[in-house]
């Protein structure tokens, strides 16, 4: 795949007081690629995702989407440029119906529909993620996997150029996990460009085209999944050094 990079991260850096959470990280994501962003807890993966989505502004470095600089822009502008995301701790809109939750993604972002158009988009996506006919359901009482599905449908509703999944598979039981992996796989087959932060190694191995490994805020490896996971520096980042 030699498509042009849709996302280019160059020397991204985020400092919280004395802590360097993301330390000069650079990588590209090409159109239609599914990139896994992995690393031990506290390695800066979610912070990296927050820099891309605009939840946080980078201290230094640039992030470009399809050639246009998005770093430093407010989150709502980045969303309109075509970046959608899910959250590590699922965030639904509890006082709104399932359909309205998904519509929220289709009205203000990269895709700006309204009225019946937005409703049609939302209904189709509910069906897509396995919530067909649940449009009127109150979301506060949905099960965890259904809330996760809903959040994914909301992110897809803007037809994003780049989708960020922050541990979307975390907390699912084995049968739900299989459903979740199948769903992400379908999106990949549709040609969606995705970055997923994930701890579930089975999902990384079976889904990702490529992965980027972070440890203590630094990118320590990047490349083919099987190859990268076998590298000694990646193994030691996860398991510690033998001679320690």
């Amino acid at each position, binding site marked *: 795949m030699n498509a042009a990079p849709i996302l280019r991260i160059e020397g991204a850096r985020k400092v919280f007081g004395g802590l360097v959470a993301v330390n000069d990280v650079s990588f590209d994501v090409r159109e239609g690629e599914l990139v896994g962003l992995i690393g031990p807890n506290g390695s800066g993966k979610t912070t990296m995702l927050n820099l891309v*989505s*605009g*939840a946080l502004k980078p201290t230094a470095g640039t992030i470009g989407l399809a050639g246009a600089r998005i770093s430093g822009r*407010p*989150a*709502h502008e980045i*969303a*309109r440029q075509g970046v*959608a*995301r899910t*959250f590590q701790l699922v*965030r*639904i*809109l*509890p*006082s*709104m119906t399932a359909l*309205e939750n998904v*519509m*929220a*993604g289709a*009205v*203000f*972002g*990269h895709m700006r529909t*309204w*009225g019946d158009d937005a409703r049609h988009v939302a209904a189709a996506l509910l069906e897509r993620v396995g919530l067909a006919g649940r449009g009127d359901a109150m979301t506060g009482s949905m099960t965890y996997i259904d809330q996760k599905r809903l959040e994914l449908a*909301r992110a897809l509703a*803007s037809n994003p150029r780049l989708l960020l999944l922050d541990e979307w598979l975390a907390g699912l039981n084995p049968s739900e996990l299989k459903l979740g992996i199948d769903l992400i796989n379908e999106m990949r087959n549709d040609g969606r460009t995705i970055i997923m932060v994930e701890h579930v190694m089975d999902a990384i191995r079976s889904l990702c085209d490529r992965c980027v490994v972070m440890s203590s805020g630094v990118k320590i490896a990047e490349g083919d999944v099987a190859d990268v996971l076998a590298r000694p520096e990646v193994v030691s980042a996860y398991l510690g050094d033998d001679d320690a």
Partner: protein
Amino acid sequence: MTPLLATITRREAGIAVIGAVMLAAAATLPLFDTGFYLSLALNIAMYVVLCTAWTLFSGPTHYISLASAAFFGIGTYSVALGIETLPFPLLVTIGFVASAVLAGLVGIATLRLSGVYFVIFTLGLAELVRQVVTWAQTNFTRGVGLYVFTDFTEAHIYWMLLGLAAVVYVTGWLVNRSRLGFALRIIGNDETVARHVGINTAMAKVALFMISGGFIGIVGAFLAPRFAYVEPPSAFNPMISFQVVIMALLGGTGRLWAPLLGVIPFTILFDQISANFPNHTSLVIGIAFMSVVYLLPRGVVGLIEDMRRMKRKFRIVWTDDAALGKDPAE
């Protein structure tokens, strides 16, 4: 505007007809009484508009604004300062624009503040505006007060307020079905999500705060002739801000018409309190405020909804029993 009319549901049309009939009925009141009851109805109409306008913003966003007195006073002063030279409708317009502009400036400066900081800032703002007006009057004009002489009777002011109430309700309905209204519901649910689906949350909040503040300014402008003598403590009376919040919360902020259910009982109650306990008014209002927050956290509307839900539950139990062939009377 065919697309708009075409999308009005039967239910909405029904509500509009009922609302128009109620409004028309209310408008006949001055034909029967121009004394105590008109005066009471005028107070009710005033607080209906104030509370509904307040709820337009505070309902979906959950920001408690205590700036109502500032907007109200600016409206009143717009009329009081210009009544000798400019026509009344123009002065009302000036009051609306000035209040909306102030709301916009306050919004840009403070809507990043959350929770209690916003409350305190808006309370301070009302006081600041009052002090500035007092200072300007003592230094640049002859006296602190202004006389407002017009030909308006209480009936005229009452009718103007009823007309304004209709405008506020229609505005609220239009906002609710617009992108702006949808955006504000999302913001009220989760502001982080709102930003990440592409909503400019600051803009949306400022826009609605301006609409809300502008309407409150118009109420102040309409009320100026009733004061006859306008001075800062009466025009920028902080009690207005507090009562608006109490009444709106008593009614409930989840529905456009909900504040009505708080305004009517509370205005009558307040009238009785100030007539019977003139020296303890503040104390009794304080107790009323605390009771509302403790006993009816979601207002009268919340209470009605809870009762409906209980009734529905009861009915389900009842039909289950019936399906099993049990006698529900057992």
